[in-house]
């Protein structure tokens, strides 16, 4: 395995952020469907991302340190390590849209790009998400070309 390739493999310890040929980006992927979670994770890993998955909005907020009772604790630092959040729209409890709103309401995380995924192509739904500040809306099932496009966009945003 040559050295330059090792920079883009996501086999790093949590805090390790390597600035090499490809900067490792940390993505939080939220989806209630186990199969979709597994696929999205592999898609992102194949594009040199470090991936954390969450099975619902609440767990995602917990990870980001945004849960109501976490606001004023030291957990607040964890959220800032995430470069992008990609979430399914249709989830029980909290929808991807509601999760998006909570993230955009947070002073700490509002700059983090949020991508919404959905299996349904509903223009009003798409517009609603974009208006609320979603970076992109993607139709499921996701393909490699979708993630490539996403990665390209992320690089432009900076980390």
């Amino acid at each position: 395995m040559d050295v330059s390739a090792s920079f883009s493999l996501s086999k790093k310890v949590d805090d390790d952020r390597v600035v090499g040929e490809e900067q490792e980006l940390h993505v939080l992927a939220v989806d209630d469907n186990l199969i979709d979670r597994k696929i999205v994770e592999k898609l992102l890993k194949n594009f040199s991302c470090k991936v954390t998955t969450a099975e619902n909005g609440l767990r995602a907020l917990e990870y980001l340190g945004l849960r109501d009772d976490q606001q004023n604790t030291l957990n607040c630092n964890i959220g800032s390590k995430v470069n992008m959040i990609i979430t399914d729209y249709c989830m029980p409890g909290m929808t991807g849209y509601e999760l998006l709103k909570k993230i955009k309401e947070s002073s700490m995380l509002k700059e983090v790009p949020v991508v919404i995924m959905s299996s349904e192509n509903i223009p009003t739904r798409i517009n609603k998400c974009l208006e609320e500040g979603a970076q992109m809306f993607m139709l499921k099932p996701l393909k490699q070309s979708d993630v490539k496009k996403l990665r390209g966009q992320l690089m432009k945003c900076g980390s």
Partner: protein
Amino acid sequence: MEVGQLQRRFLEYTASLFNQGLLDGQFQQLQQLQDESNPDFVVEVVSLFFEDSEKLLHDLTIAIGQQTVDFKKVDAYVHQFKGSSSSIGAQRVRNACIAIRSFCEEQNVEACMRCLLQLKQEYSLVKDKLQDLFRLEQQIVEAGGAVPMLE
């Protein structure tokens, strides 16, 4: 059987599944995701799909068999099934789900039951075919060959 023959058989079998519409491009996406760091990726994802599907079919059968059918519940199950079948490229299963959903909207129990039967048949078919496919893959690997990909 020697490796070359096994590989040819595998490719022909895979092609037939696409030609019959049992699988679509999304399955190829999964195959392309598989690599040395995750050599069993496709089998793992498809196994999860089988587990998930069996549970959903069970729950759907109960829900549609109720005295008073809760169509919202049925729709929710079908939505999930549609999603996962779509994610692995099980095209005909996905289409069967779409059919059920439209009858849910109409609140047509009879039609839903008919479609559920169809869904079960499609699922059973794709499951058998995929298991055959994985067996063929296994044979190639055991014979020391590499599993080819359909272009």
